[in-house]
């Protein structure tokens, strides 16, 4: 039995693959691609929310928003660490992002126009991320799965704080109700797109499922998310912007209307409303941080020199 067959057998037995274990090059490449996209998404995901830190309506909500954004940065770090176990440097991944060669979740290329967006992002965007990440936590690559477990624990706070904002605003004034409904109208479809292209048009899915990096398909996860979200919208009197949404009594599923995949691909390819802004903000943050990195390295070198002198 060759190494490739032995690897497939380990996967079939449900074994967890660790960094130093032998793995096919293709498995390694797919994981680097997936984990780095995921890491970039966490980091870029801080930007739409950062837009509202200085305008949070109360000290409590400001503290919560800051804590959530700090978590997203931390999630990015867990994920870059997981990617590095596969033999790629964080600096290289960061470079790919800054040069616009890397992908990240296209939902972060939409603008955050009102405070209600902070609620709806926590509820829908983090909610969708939890569905995806709960599945990934059972994946075959140890460092990625362990990062997911840690992240899922923290994301549940994100979702709840978001839903609290949504629930509060939907009991508020007519203007607040309009705002929160508007945020749902804008973020519902991009949230469904977060699960990726439909199964029939998802080139990487079959391989990722075979290697148990993914344990459920894009469409299955999307359906799971819709099923759990409908009643949450009803509970606060919000309407999901889909006239075709209907309950199928036989399957128990909430069937939903056609997703605009043209829009999805347009945004993925860089032409969403905020792609250029997000990249500019990341580049500026990297450049503005250069002196900190330099000072820390010089300080460390000096300390080492005086210790050995």
């Amino acid at each position: 039995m060759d190494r490739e067959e032995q690897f497939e057998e380990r996967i079939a037995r449900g074994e967890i693959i660790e960094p130093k274990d032998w793995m096919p090059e293709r498995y390694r490449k797919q994981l680097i691609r997936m984990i780095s996209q995921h890491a970039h998404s966490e980091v870029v995901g801080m930007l739409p929310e950062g837009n509202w830190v200085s305008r949070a309506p109360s000290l409590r909500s400001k503290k919560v928003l800051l804590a959530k954004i700090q978590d997203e940065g931390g999630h990015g770090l867990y994920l870059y660490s997981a990617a590095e176990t596969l033999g790629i440097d964080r600096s290289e991944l960061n470079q790919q992002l800054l040069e616009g060669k890397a992908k990240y979740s296209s939902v972060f290329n939409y603008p955050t126009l009102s405070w209600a967006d902070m609620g709806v992002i926590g509820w829908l965007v983090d909610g969708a991320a939890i569905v995806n990440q709960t599945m990934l936590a059972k994946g075959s690559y140890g460092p990625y799965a362990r990062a997911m477990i840690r992240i899922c624990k923290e994301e549940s706070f994100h979702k709840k704080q978001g839903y609290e904002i949504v629930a509060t605003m939907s009991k508020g004034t007519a203007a607040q109700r309009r705002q929160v409904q508007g945020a749902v109208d804008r973020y519902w479809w991009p949230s469904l797109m977060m699960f990726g292209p439909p199964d029939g048009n998802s080139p990487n899915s079959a391989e990722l499922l075979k290697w148990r990096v993914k344990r459920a398909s894009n469409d299955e996860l999307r359906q799971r998310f819709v099923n759990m979200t409908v009643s949450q919208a009803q509970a606060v009197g919000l309407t999901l912007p889909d006239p075709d949404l209907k309950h199928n009594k036989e399957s128990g599923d909430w069937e939903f209307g056609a997703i605009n995949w043209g829009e999805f691909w347009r945004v993925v390819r860089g032409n969403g409303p905020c792609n250029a802004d997000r990249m500019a903000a990341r580049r500026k943050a990297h450049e503005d941080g250069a002196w900190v990195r330099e000072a820390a390295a010089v300080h460390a070198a000096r300390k080492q020199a005086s210790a050995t002198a």
Partner: protein
Amino acid sequence: MKEKVDSLDEWAVWEVFSQLEWGKPHEHCGSLHAPDAEIALQNARDVYARRFSVKSLWVVPANAITATRQEDGESFFDPQDEKIYRHPSFYKLPKGVRNI
């Protein structure tokens, strides 16, 4: 000599171990980049001890760790299977004797 210190890979990788309860072992919880041990500890606190009650943190330069590899695991750990007399179930005792 003036070198541009700009890229992140100037900073070494550190492995982080945390102890969640006094008296319990430290367990590996992840890794991070840092220019020195002091900043490695501060980063470890910010990244791995934001909300779980962590009692103690260790940071170790990743390149200071030597580990077994999966492919030499079988022969390396061989003695485990050979010495069954290391297990209490190996021994035959007369019936009815207790607390041995």
